[in-house]
């Protein structure tokens, strides 16, 4: 027996998702503005103002997955100019935040259309197709930005040991992108069926 379609089952999920996505987009806009302002400021402030002594790193440590690392164990003592590090970190931040923002804006558009009651719309299919392309592009762009940042960090601070920063395409992003593009085709076909249904009396 066919189950009757009920939108009420999903109303709660739509509301929560829309609320979270809406506020995340706003927060990321603010974060992006802060990073861009910081980047512009670093660009125009004279290089001499960016001297940094690694003695200030004493007792600073961070956790990388399950590894607990003390920064002073890896960085050579001395004074370094960190302007280039901050610039590259800013660019990397803009790229990462921008990518997340593009994906969230796409999700927000989809949710709004679904809430309106028209999930199968050619515009939704186009949004999904673009999101798939962003993921595939992101598999190269994001690792590139992050590699540039790590490389600058390693070379600026003369990280102890034979440090090497490798670039690798993020295959998870490639797979996600391809999956989303398959979904875009499904939505495109669904839109065609919806149109056929709507023009049947």
């Amino acid at each position, binding site marked *: 027996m066919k189950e009757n379609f009920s939108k009420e089952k999903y109303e709660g999920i739509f509301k929560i998702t829309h609320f979270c996505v809406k506020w995340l987009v706003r927060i990321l806009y603010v974060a992006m503005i802060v990073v861009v302002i910081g980047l512009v400021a670093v660009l125009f402030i004279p290089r001499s103002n960016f001297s940094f002594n690694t003695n200030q790193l004493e007792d600073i440590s961070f956790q990388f997955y399950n590894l607990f690392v003390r920064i002073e164990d890896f960085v050579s003592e001395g004074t370094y100019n960190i302007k280039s590090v901050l610039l590259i970190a800013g660019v990397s931040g803009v790229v990462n935040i921008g990518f997340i923002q593009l994906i969230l804006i796409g999700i927000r558009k989809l949710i709004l259309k679904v809430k309106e009651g028209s999930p199968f719309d050619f515009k939704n299919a186009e949004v999904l197709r673009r999101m798939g392309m962003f993921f595939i592009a992101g598999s190269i762009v994001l690792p590139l930005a992050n590699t540039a940042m790590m490389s600058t960090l390693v070379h600026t601070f003369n990280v102890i040991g034979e440090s090497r920063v490798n670039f690798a395409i993020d295959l998870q992003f490639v797979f996600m992108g391809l999956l989303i593009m398959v979904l875009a085709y499904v939505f495109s076909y669904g839109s065609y069926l919806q149109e*056929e249904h709507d*023009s*049947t*009396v």
Partner: protein
Amino acid sequence: MPIITRLDRLLAEHKMQLSELADQVGISLANLSNLKTGKVKAIRFSTLEKICEILQCQPGDILEYSQEPFSYSEE
């Protein structure tokens, strides 16, 4: 489109308004108007059955096939 509807002729014969027919058939006025002006791509048998029941006619009285281009504005 080669399939044309003669709904307005039948409505005139029965002295019935389109809105009245839409109410009795159970479809929206917009959809029935689209059917009347040939803007729909398909009609369900259930809809055709109700129209025939209300207008006391045959499906052939409502639907006509014409290979020549037809304009609803001529009616």
